[in-house]
């Protein structure tokens, strides 16, 4: 059995709350009345077949997609829409940005800024969003780069680095904002198999050393088992089964979960 670095989070303190969330792309209803809560410090992994809406959920939290209906609250604050006098009111971008400052996301394709060096990538937001002095931001970046094993490449351009190296820098870039929530969308899927391990190792360290809440989409079931407090199985936009990773991965109850896991494991 792998050692489980997960911890149960602060019970009862909701960090990410989906309330009656609806997301449509045109006529295609991807999420239909979705409700779930991630508590402070909790690590939740989303699994489910392709097209079930996992990425969409993460993108909604990052405000990369606009909600069609319902609400998402972050630490009790409305993220995209709020209820005002019985009406559903859109929250302006500026105010949304104040909430998203506490949320970081790592993408499948890294999305580093190619026109900047590694160091510039990492200090961009701390300097321009948090208002840190350049020297402070750089000192902090050095620490983070060392943590992900990339300190020696701080003056390189992203294009000079391997996928695994770029992804570790993208993780450092997200952490430089001191996020309280980290969203990870298949962060190893674009990597050559031999580079997956180094990225997962970094993420396991972060899971063990911080109390950042995490919402994770991954096909690395072993990794999910080690870091998650809870696994949610999605199908057709709703949660069909959820529970402790050992329970979901070893003795799933739902037939569709069983079929899905048999296909991917």
């Amino acid at each position, binding site marked *: 059995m792998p050692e489980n670095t997960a911890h149960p989070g602060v019970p009862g303190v909701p960090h990410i709350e989906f309330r009656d969330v609806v997301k449509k792309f045109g006529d295609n209803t991807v999420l239909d009345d979705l409700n779930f809560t991630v508590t402070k410090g909790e690590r939740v992994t989303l699994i489910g077949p392709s097209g079930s809406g996992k990425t969409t959920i993460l993108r909604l939290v*990052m*405000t*990369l997609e606009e909600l069609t209906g319902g609400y998402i609250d972050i630490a009790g604050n409305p993220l995209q829409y709020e209820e005002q006098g019985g009406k559903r009111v859109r929250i302006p971008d500026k105010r949304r940005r104040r909430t*998203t400052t506490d949320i970081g996301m790592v*993408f499948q394709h890294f*999305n580093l*800024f190619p026109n900047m060096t590694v160091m510039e990538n990492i200090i961009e937001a701390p300097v*321009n969003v948090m208002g840190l002095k350049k020297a402070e931001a750089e000192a902090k970046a050095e620490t983070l780069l060392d943590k992900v094993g990339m300190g020696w490449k701080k003056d390189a351009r992203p294009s000079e680095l391997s996928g695994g190296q770029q992804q570790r820098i993208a993780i450092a870039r*997200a952490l430089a904002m001191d996020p309280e929530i980290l969203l990870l969308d298949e962060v190893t899927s674009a990597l050559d198999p031999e580079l997956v391990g180094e990225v997962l190792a970094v993420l396991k360290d972060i899971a063990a050393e911080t109390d950042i809440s995490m919402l994770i989409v991954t096909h690395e079931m072993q990794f999910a088992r080690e870091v998650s407090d809870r696994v949610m199985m999605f199908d057709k936009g709703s949660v069909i089964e959820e529970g402790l990773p050992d329970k979901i991965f070893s003795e799933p109850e739902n037939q569709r979960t069983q079929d899905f896991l048999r296909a991917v494991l």
Partner: protein
Amino acid sequence: MTPQNSWWSWDHAFAVLPDLLFEGFKITLVATVLGTLIALVLGLVVAIIRRSAPRIISTPFTWVVEFIRMTPLVVQLVFANLVLSPYVDSSLSIGIWVLGIHYTTYMAEVYRAGIDSVPKGQWEAATALSLPRMRTWRAVVVPQAIRNTVPALGNYAISMFKETPFLFVIYVPELLNVAQNYGSTYFRYTEAITLAGLIFLAASYPTSLLIRRLEKKLA
């Protein structure tokens, strides 16, 4: 001494050359450089507005841009001169602004293509870092967009240079105008016009080579 009736006279050639270079070419160069600067700056502004402003603003902008692109430069020069000459002393300034605004519409298209070529993931990474919109444009999108547009922008600068003779129609003493004047004063057009053409060639050919080299370096 070359006989008067021969088709080419070195005397006339040498007589007109200083005027061509130090008056005509100087004005042509000033018009091109300032016109290009206007087009480079306004083109970027227009491209950003068309991409990010709400419909009510960006749609009229699109109409104006299309209108300017679809009417000839000469007509715009004559029209602007007609309307503005009572208020603006220098026909050169009018000419520079017309050139600049005319080319703004072309350069805006180039920038637009450059902006569209920046992957969506770059915008998304900026959102994930909560970067303000302005900062995203300035630090992420524009630097990447411009990289792909340098050659096309350079080519428009050269074509603006080659269209400066149109300033002739509003009596700006640029290269062609100087040559034409010399011709009508001495009834000798060949030397002046030929030299004017050669000066254009001598300036634009090396510039286009430079742009091609730049293009290769950026690719």
